[in-house]
């Protein structure tokens, strides 16, 4: 009787619990698989890598749009607020660049001097030796001055007062010559007014590698833009040349057209053989 009841009870248990057990087994298997995936690096990376990669690609493509302006603004503010630190940081880099540039220039200079020394028996060298002997200037100094010989790049004939351009000769045509002559006259007038020296004239303006030599005449002045080493001796030569030029200009400056003055300046340039580098 008891055995029979036990069998019935077992049957009932089987009927009631068999499905749950199967489900529990399936869940346990699934958990094992997930645990294995999480705990084993290779398996985890197989699943996660494509997602991260996709997100990264999207992030990278969105950076310039979303973060670009913020980064730019932040950098600007940081640079503005910490100028000294920026200078500190850039100083070694700039220093190296400048050093390299100077080294390069010195190499070029040394090459040029070598060429000239090797060319000892040329006619130019002979002339230089004679010049050195008669002028008392050392031959080496003459050599160096030849390397960076002065060059007249532009010549302006400008009416005094009005600043109107009467004539011009130039190797370049980059800027409006009328504006240049106006501004030169304005600067000249300003300096002459500001430092009241009793009818004194501004005679030169220097800016980095250029020098503007100004020679004043009665109704006009001539401005010559010069590059290279502007020595006192070159200034004398230039002054004499411009005086000679003024002889052909002064008498008829008011009746000459701009084209005629341009022509005179062109011929002046062609005749004048500036020492070449």
């Amino acid at each position, binding site marked *: 009787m008891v055995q029979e009841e036990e069998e019935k009870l077992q049957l009932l248990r089987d009927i009631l619990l068999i499905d749950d057990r199967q489900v529990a087994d399936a869940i346990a298997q699934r958990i094992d698989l997930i645990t294995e995936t999480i705990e084993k690096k290779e398996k985890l990376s197989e699943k996660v890598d494509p997602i991260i990669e996709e997100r990264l690609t999207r992030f990278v493509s969105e950076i310039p749009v979303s973060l670009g302006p913020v980064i730019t603004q932040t950098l600007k503010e940081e640079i503005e607020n910490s100028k000294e630190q920026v200078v500190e940081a850039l100083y070694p880099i700039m220093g190296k660049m400048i050093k390299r540039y100077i080294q390069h220039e010195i190499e070029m200079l040394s090459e040029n001097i070598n060429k000239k020394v090797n060319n000892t028996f040329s006619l130019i060298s002979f002339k230089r030796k004679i010049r050195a002997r008669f002028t008392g200037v050392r031959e080496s100094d003459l050599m160096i001055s030849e390397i960076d010989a002065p060059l007249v790049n532009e010549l302006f004939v400008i009416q005094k007062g*009005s*600043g*109107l351009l009467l004539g011009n000769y130039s190797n370049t045509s980059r800027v409006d010559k009328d*504006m240049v002559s106006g*501004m030169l006259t*304005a600067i000249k007038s*300003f300096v*002459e007014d500001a430092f009241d020296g009793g009818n004194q004239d501004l005679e030169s303006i220097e800016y980095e590698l250029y020098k503007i030599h100004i020679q004043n005449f009665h109704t006009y002045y001539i401005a010559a833009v010069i590059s290279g080493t502007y020595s006192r001796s070159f200034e004398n030569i230039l002054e004499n040349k411009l005086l000679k030029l003024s002889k052909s200009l002064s008498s008829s400056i008011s009746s000459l057209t701009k084209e005629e003055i341009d022509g005179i300046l062109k011929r002046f340039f062609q005749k004048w053989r500036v020492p070449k580098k």
Partner: protein
Amino acid sequence: MPSSKKIVMLGHFGVGKTSLVRRYVDSAFSEDYLVTLGVQVKSKEVNYKGETIKLIIWDIEGNTSLDLARKSYLMGSQGFVYVFDVTRPETFNHLQSELDFLGTNYSKVPYVLVGNKKDLISSDQIQQQFSDNIFQNTTFTSAKEGENVESFFLDLLTQLI
């Protein structure tokens, strides 16, 4: 080759001399006010009755009176543009003495009178406020909108040639 004419812009600070020149030469305008220090020279080639003329425009710094303007900037001028601001009476209150100064010292140099910033007041206000004889030949302009800017330069050019 065009002939060149030197024109000088005169008037108080902030009346719009530089803006008028910018509008005329570069066809541009900016709301930002930058005071002119010293002088700024601009040029523009114009065709007038078949002849090409190059205007060299000297836009000099503003002064409360022409007495105070640097004389060397005015030397050799062939035309003047006297500009005042229609919204600021202090820029035209002493107009008569300013024009007398030009008449005494530069009697042979033609000039035009320009009332700038007309976009800031109504036409009725202009008519009421500037009915005196002294304003008779004034050209009212707006550098901002480009109104009448070409016309006063043309007017001066007509007097120059």
